[in-house]
């Protein structure tokens, strides 16, 4: 992470989201804090229902009713003409939000098929957004820019004349990514953009995103449940469980040596792309009901290393040293008399079987 504050694009502190109101409220995201530097990639991983999508939709104020943001601060640093200013997304008016959406923050959803109007040619989608954003652009200029954007994501210019149904799933998703980049936003959020695609296409898109990020310099929040995909793309990974961050670490460190039992479980749920075959163990049980979360650490019913303290006290997300890593687990509490299990104490340098 960049050292100076001026390089931060997004700063989130103590962010919480509820579904429902007052007595019926269920807390879906609890006390999340993080910051994101310019042209950095933050991966957010976790099972279905862990709150990862709720987190980003909450940050962008896109959450549907009955979602309510119940605590926190979200500060976005603006670029372009308003360089140097910051905006508090949670205090922003609708007009302010409208002004920064797409041009400062853009979002790519999971289902590209439903996001494109089936009656519009691809070119029209680009033309519209470019025209609305900058009236001074002439028609040929807009067309040129649209072709340029398509080229960025590896599509031929003639695709502009096509309708969405004439494109494959991967091509449509690329169009969505190109559209998201159309106004040169400095923060792009992608919510499982590759989940509906096959592994080969996933890989292509991820490596393209990697290049694009380097060329265009936008910061990226990438949500997925596929940790191995994140490792290739992200600089830093946040693992979420039951609406909380349970582990945050530089991507490679997290991959080589997970510190939280849940992260370890997630990694053992995906086969490595290379290397010898290992048994997939997965994580027993299912995520907790957030209406009645278990006492103590929310992961304790499924955790192989749970002990007395886990059943009564919630572990805070605390820095464990080791290159800026934080973990919310009592095993890593310096005051804990317990031995850290071997699988969770692997030194960062060593590599697990078969990787790299």
């Amino acid at each position: 992470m960049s050292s100076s504050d001026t390089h931060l694009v997004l700063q989130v502190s103590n962010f919480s989201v509820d579904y429902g109101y007052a007595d019926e409220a269920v807390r879906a995201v609890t006390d999340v804090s993080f910051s994101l530097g310019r042209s950095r990639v933050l991966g957010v991983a976790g099972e279905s229902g862990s709150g990862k999508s709720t987190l980003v939709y909450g940050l962008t104020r896109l959450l549907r009713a009955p979602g309510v943001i119940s605590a926190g601060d979200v500060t976005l640093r603006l670029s372009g003409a308003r360089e140097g200013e910051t905006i508090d997304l949670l205090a922003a008016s609708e007009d302010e939000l409208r002004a920064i959406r797409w041009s400062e923050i853009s979002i790519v959803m999971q289902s590209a098929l439903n996001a494109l109007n089936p009656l519009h040619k691809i070119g029209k989608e680009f033309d519209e957004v470019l025209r609305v954003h900058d009236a001074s652009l002439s028609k040929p200029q807009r067309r040129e820019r649209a072709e340029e954007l398509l080229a960025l994501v590896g599509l031929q210019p003639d695709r502009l004349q096509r309708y969405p149904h004439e494109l494959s799933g991967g091509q449509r998703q690329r169009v969505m990514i190109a559209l998201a980049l159309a106004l040169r936003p400095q923060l792009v959020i992608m919510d499982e953009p590759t989940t509906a695609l096959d592994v080969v296409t996933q890989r292509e898109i991820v490596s393209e995103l990697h290049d694009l990020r380097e060329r265009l310099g936008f910061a990226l929040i990438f949500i997925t449940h596929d940790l191995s995909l994140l490792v290739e793309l992200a600089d830093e990974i946040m693992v979420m469980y039951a609406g909380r961050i349970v582990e945050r670490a530089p991507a490679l460190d997290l991959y080589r040596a997970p510190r939280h039992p849940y992260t370890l479980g997630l990694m053992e749920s995906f086969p490595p792309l290379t290397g010898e075959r290992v048994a997939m163990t997965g994580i027993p049980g299912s995520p907790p009901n957030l209406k009645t979360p278990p006492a103590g650490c929310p992961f304790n019913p499924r955790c192989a290393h749970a002990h007395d303290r886990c059943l009564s006290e919630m572990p805070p997300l605390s820095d464990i040293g080791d290159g800026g890593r934080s973990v919310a687990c009592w095993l890593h509490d310096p005051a804990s008399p317990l031995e850290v299990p071997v699988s969770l104490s692997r030194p960062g340098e060593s590599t697990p079987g078969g990787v790299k």
Partner: protein
Amino acid sequence: MKALRIPRSPKVIVGLVILSVFIVLTVIGPWIAPYDPNANTFIPNLTPSWEHWFGTTTLGQDVLSQLLVGCRVTMVVGFIAGLVATLISIAVGLAAGYIGGRTDEGLSLLANVFLAIPGLPLLIVINSYLPAGSQANPLVVGLVIALTGWAWGARVLRAQTMSLRDRDFVEASRIIGEKRWRIMWSEIGPNLLPIIAASLLFTILYAVGVYSTLAFLGLTNVSTWNWGTMMYWAQSNNAALANEWWWLAPPGVAIALVGTSLALINFGIDEFINPRLRAAGLTARQRRRVGLTRRPRLGFTPVLRQSPTDAKKVS
């Protein structure tokens, strides 16, 4: 357990209360009527008073008694017609939409014909062919009204069935060899419930309106008391010209109240079927209680936090 909780939306509660009052009156109305509705022994044209809550008519009859007695016939005709018309529309709509092909063409043609024929003249014609005794029979009149009121519901159900028939869960049951009637009944049918419920409510409303219209025009047996014949007698005795509002208004208001209650209940069905509507449908008071200053809207998630300065003090 949660699904069966009492609706909390005030709209629905008001609708249910009004409708239950009329249903109770349907049952007990003729018994609690203070006088014989035909008795013309009172002083004519009395304004509302303790003896005659809604006054008396030019013919010296008690308006309240007529209203209470007339409630039963009006409501029974409305409900019979609504139920029968809805059953016909389910049968026709499901069959046309699911089976398709020639069946669809035939049934759609039938529905279109009934939609194209103006309902009221058709009713008048059919009604005039009924034997005089049947004209006073609520069951027969209800069936006749149902005959003109089913086509709209059938069209809507057909359209929805067609959109459901190619969904994956229906195709899956077809592939594993479920019988056609079973797919229609247990795969598609339950998905049509919200539309069926709405169609039932509005067909009842239509039937009450049409029956009152027929009676108002004097086309039913005018010696049977219902809200329409009350207005018929009021009209033929120039109640409006003589400014006898207590005679003309009660049946009209009663019809309007029944209609309002049915429409309000329909809102409740919508909210019950679509929980999103319910969440967005917090009343102004509920919103204030939880601290929202305005209705939650797409793209503008409400923020309920302490003011940023407070939050900083805490942290």
